[in-house]
């Protein structure tokens, strides 16, 4: 962010905290693009990012009269914005949980955000790499291939345990200790 913008935000917040109502348009003009970008980054460019940014702006305006002059205005604003974004993310997560409890199929409005999808895809990729180190027998024991018919339960459990152990070793070899 440009230092001029940061300075302008600091001055507008201080003016409003001092009771100068005329500083409101300047604050909105300087702060809105920053808040919108922050909300979009925090919520993965979802359409509700704009609603959250507006909510943050109104909250900042409502609490600016209690602003401590010795603090940095932008850090204070980001504190409020982070709280709002986390609240929105929790809300989305709760909605997703309630969707999955009510039997909605995966992928039908159940994804929290593009960021979550990206994390899931990345996890799948690293798991695939670790699984690539295992033999076909181990893979089938872990449920990634056809199961051996007629095997006794204790033997299956033992083989699965060994396959899991080998998967852990492969993971540590590639990515190190967790």
């Amino acid at each position: 962010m440009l230092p001029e913008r940061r300075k302008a935000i600091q001055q507008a917040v201080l003016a409003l905290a001092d009771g100068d109502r005329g500083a409101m348009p300047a604050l909105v003009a300087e702060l809105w693009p920053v808040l919108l970008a922050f909300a979009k980054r925090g919520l993965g460019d979802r359409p509700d990012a704009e609603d959250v940014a507006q909510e943050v702006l109104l909250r900042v305006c409502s609490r600016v009269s209690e602003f401590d002059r010795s603090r940095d205005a932008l850090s204070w604003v980001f504190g409020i914005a982070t709280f709002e974004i986390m609240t929105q993310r929790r809300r989305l997560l709760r909605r997703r949980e309630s969707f999955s409890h009510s039997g909605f199929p995966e992928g039908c409005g159940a994804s929290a955000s593009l960021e979550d999808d990206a994390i899931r895809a990345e996890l799948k990729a690293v798991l695939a790499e670790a699984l690539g180190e295992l033999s076909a027998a181990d893979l089938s024991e872990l449920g990634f291939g056809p199961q051996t018919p007629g095997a006794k339960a204790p033997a299956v459990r033992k083989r699965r345990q060994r396959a899991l152990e080998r998967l852990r070793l492969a993971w540590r070899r590639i990515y190190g200790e967790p």
Partner: protein
Amino acid sequence: MENLEALAKRGLRAYELGRLRMALRVGLVLIPAVVVCLLEPVGRVCCAGCGVLLLGAAVWLRFRDRVGVESVTSGLLAGAIPLVAGLALVEFDPGCAAAPAFSCCTLFSVLVGGAAGAVVALREASAKSRSGNWLLAAGVAALAASLGCIRLGLASVLAVTLGIVVGRAATPNPARVGE
């Protein structure tokens, strides 16, 4: 997307509401003080009048700007001394209410007023509250003092006010030396 002008209007509305909420918080201190004053059997009407005036002035000043917030804080801190002293004097020496204008009770009022004035001056000197206005602070302190001294008569209220002005002027203040 909402345009910035509409957003600024909504922001201003939220700002005014937030400021009013902050200003009304002074009631948490003032309302109990007024209630204590109203518990006394005599002079309830004057006490209620002073209380309403003080509450209104404090809320309005705090709502207006930071100077008002600082002035009200200084004024209430300073006014608490004569307020408590006045209530205590009525309790322990009921004769003060009927005392003549030039009496020990009036002298006592000048002294506690002077202490309040000193508090205003000291707060004025501190870096944190330099943005406050000493006249506003003295006014709030006088109103707060009136809550306690109103039963002692008009002479007592005037003596406290005089004491505040004299106390503020007499207290050495590094901020004023440079003026």
